[in-house]
């Protein structure tokens, strides 16, 4: 993965950054992660793989 940046995204962050963190919102929307805050808080991290040009 020489040209890949791997970014762990922690869904629980949504609970504390929901208003300000638009990018994380977008990530969770794309993943279809929703439901109660309790469910989101207990999820494992999501790996965000960014493939560089």
């Amino acid at each position, binding site marked *: *993965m*020489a*040209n*890949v*940046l*791997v*970014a*762990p*995204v*922690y869904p629980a*962050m949504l609970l504390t*950054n929901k208003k*300000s*963190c*638009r*990018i*994380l919102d*977008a*990530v969770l929307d*794309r*993943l279809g*992660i929703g439901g109660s805050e309790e469910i989101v808080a*207990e*999820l*494992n*991290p*999501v*790996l*965000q*793989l*960014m*493939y*560089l*040009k």
Partner: protein
Amino acid sequence: MKFRELVVVFSLLAMLGCSGRHDGLECPTVVVDPNSRDVIRMSDFVERVEYIPLEKTDECLIREVSRVFELDNELIVVDKKDKSIFFFDRSGHYRRKISKRGRAGNEYVSMDAVMLDAVRRQLIVFDLMSKKLLFYSLDGVCEKVVPRFGVFEDRYIRDMINLPDGNFLCYSYLHGANQNYGTDGVWEVSADGEFVRWIQKFDLIHPAATVDYAFFHREDGTVGWMCVEYTEDYYYDEAKVRPLLAYEVDGPTAMDFSGMNNNDYAFRWAKGEMFNDRRYTQYRGDCVFTCWGSEVENHRYYSLYDKRRDDAVSVNWIMLSEIRNCCLQGSIDFQKNRF
């Protein structure tokens, strides 16, 4: 919002040039200006993005992603807080883990460094508390233990990396004048844990960040060393360190507090005398990402150096904390996150 539409506010850098360093060898010098800003699109350097939700089971509860390896279409996620190594398939389905906390011979008390040897198909765990090195197969079987690994002049190994010949590079970050000044730095240790040679001793005194990850494997097979103490990076080749990239900050750095160790500096810091501090750097393809500035205005920022821009080097600052937290910090900080 599509990823390509995301516009990141950066503060811009300034310039670049080359300067002679270290025995006449030259390396690019990135000069950065923390006070200038610019706006760039992440799509300028990112081709596509993939998301992999890691499955959560009772066996697999991740506290913090410390490092990620990929081998045989599997993702190997190191969680140093949980002292476990988790294996997932490329879809994020949990497969197995290595979790051997304990004091038995094939167990570890602390997980201070985790290395992957893709050739020998082993995961190598350094236990600083017990001072031993453990070699696990990818199935979690302990195949070898080296007791009293790297015990030498009371040095504490803060990070290490495996070399192609089976030896290791070990690193002890700069402590300052009150703690055996002159014996911190980088040295080589054999596979049996015996001291081989000093690679570089620190010949300076100034406050320095506590560095958790100092080494990285380069695409050409050599090993890189992020030396925040000198604000320079090196690579290790033929038993020598050679300059790779240098940074020059248009503002105060740790070098401006020469002769002062971390304890001394704590009092200056309280009075607002802060400096630009490089925390870590990641080399990925043609891009070099660096995290800066925890000591300046109490926030962090990042630089991006794109090698493809011929002689022009652009370094950009990320000023939005929300982007720092959820997007680029994780990306840049491939090896450790500090959310």
